């Protein structure tokens, strides 16, 4: 007797019910979605390209009017006057002075806070202090500018009566306080990433917490702390509103923080507030100033990258 075995289902397309059948468009749809997501990711690349393109193309026109030599070495910055001078040194001095003041505040305080939170503070203090620092970092910079102008400057004038109403010192100090959260929280992250075994070794030799922090933890976290400092410097150099509000906007070739001064960023704000026609030389100066700023932050970023590679400790 022969048994005909009929397979319950023939191995054909109809074998699977309509609902479970593999859709022909499934792969196409996946591909399209992947392409859309890739396009979204590429927006960041296009943003960078667009920034470089806009800054370079507008500055290119600017440098056809103004020789590079004058731009770098002239000691006057009067682009909006009839007797126009374009010495970027004047704006750079303001940027450097205010950033130096800010870093003198932010780096010591930020580092101390980071060491304290990472090595000394009890758990509860850290749980409260970290979010608080984050809140401090989230306050809009225009608010800090207002604070520098109407609160800190009068306070400093009590100590030093000759201080003008607009000055780089109070803007710089407030800018430093604004940067503390960035420096502190990044340095703290770096220190907490140092393995416990290193600390235990140090404590076992009888070191105190301070000795352990300064001689074991900080050296081991150098690369992370250096990145935190570099980020702080970038923030200081690129900060705009605090300086525009509290430092005055007169270009002033000085390294004295007690004087008013303009920075690269506050000059851009000043020009933007006025009504310069599109395509005029005054309009192009802000792109040349912006290009200088961009090159400075790029240099700091590269330095940070190099420091990270050079001092990275792998555990």
């Amino acid at each position: 007797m022969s048994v005909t075995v009929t397979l319950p289902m023939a191995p054909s397309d109809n074998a699977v019910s309509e609902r479970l059948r593999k859709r022909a468009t499934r792969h196409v749809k996946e591909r399209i979605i992947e392409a859309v997501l890739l396009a979204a990711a590429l927006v960041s690349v296009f943003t960078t390209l667009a920034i470089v393109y806009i800054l370079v193309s507008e500055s290119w026109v600017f440098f056809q009017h103004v020789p590079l030599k004058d731009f770098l070495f002239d000691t006057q910055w009067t682009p909006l006057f009839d007797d126009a001078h374009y010495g970027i040194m004047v704006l750079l001095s303001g940027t450097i002075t205010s950033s130096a003041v800010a870093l003198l505040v932010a780096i010591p305080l930020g580092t101390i806070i980071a060491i304290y939170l990472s090595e000394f503070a009890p758990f509860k203090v850290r749980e409260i202090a970290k979010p608080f620092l984050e809140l401090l970092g989230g306050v809009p910079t225009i608010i800090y500018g207002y604070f520098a102008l109407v609160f800190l400057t009068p306070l400093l004038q009590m100590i030093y009566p000759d201080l003008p109403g607009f000055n780089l010192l109070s803007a710089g100090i407030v800018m430093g306080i604004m940067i503390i959260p960035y420096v502190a929280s990044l340095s703290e992250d770096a220190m907490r990433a140092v393995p416990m075994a290193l600390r235990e070794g140090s404590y076992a030799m009888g070191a105190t917490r301070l000795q352990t922090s300064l001689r074991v933890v900080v050296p081991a976290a150098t690369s992370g702390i250096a990145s935190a400092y570099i980020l702080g410097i970038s923030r200081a150099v690129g900060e705009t509103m605090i300086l525009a509000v509290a430092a005055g906007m007169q270009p002033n070739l000085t390294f004295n923080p007690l004087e008013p001064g303009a920075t690269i960023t506050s000059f851009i704000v000043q020009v933007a507030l006025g009504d310069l026609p599109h395509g005029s030389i005054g309009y192009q100066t802000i792109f040349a100033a912006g290009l200088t700023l961009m090159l400075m932050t790029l240099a700091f970023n590269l330095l940070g990258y190099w420091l990270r590679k050079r001092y990275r400790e792998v555990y």
Partner: protein
Amino acid sequence: MLQPQDIEAIRALIARAKRWDAFFGVLGIIALMIGVLTFSALFLDMAVRGIPRLDLDFFTNFPSRRAASAGILSAWVGTTLVMVVTACAAVPLGIAAGVYLEEYAPKNWLTDIIEINITNLAGVPSIVYGLLALGLFVYQFGLGQSILSAGLTLALLILPVVIVATRESIRAIPVSVREGSYACGATTWQTVSDHILPYSSAGILTGVIIGMARAIGETAPIITIGALTFIAFLPTAPFAGDPPAGLFDWALAPFTVMPIQMFNWTSRPEAAFLANAAAAGFVLVLMTLAMNGAAIWLRYRLRKNIKW
């Protein structure tokens, strides 16, 4: 053998080290207190100067040449509309980019370039975004000094924040979730839309809120695109006016935002306007504090509740 004087010396050494230790503990608290005190001074100063100006009229009046009757109506409406544009652009783009980099991206040079770019963009000063917007959106694309230009500029500015937050919360999801999904025959997109995105949504939301809080306070890029500081009218509502405005006409209207209104009042010499600036600043600080606080609370909840 240790001599008694050696032991004395060691004790002195230990005592000195312990004194330094205690001293640094105090120093750390002082450093923290400087931050706390500055913040309290800032907040109280603005509250004392600003709160007397805060009444209903302040929110429903246009800016005016007379300080006492000036208000922030056009500023808060402008801020709201700009934020709508920013959110519409930055949230989908940021999440899509984050998902691509975590779930799709092959390990190749293109991915490396995208990642390096995002890191670098996070460090670009905000005013440079303003210059980009001035050259690109305002003149090349002809969008003018409008709500749309401002919103897109701020969207580019906070994009790195959203992308990084998305990636971090996606990375926190264990691989076994993906493996389970793939084992059931799901495609990559099905895995992403049914598992990865729902599970990471709270983390992504945190990043979005922090990004938006930053965008609300950004002043420099918006000044750079040339936003006017004296606006005594509102953008036309859809289908209002004569002839009726289109659905999206408001996006091309001139505008002002809260931080610019505050900057405008701060830069005037009269003391009465400083009170207005304080009041506007107080509202602005409360808004950013509320948003950042919400984000921090959300993250705290998340850390407590999720155990994979």
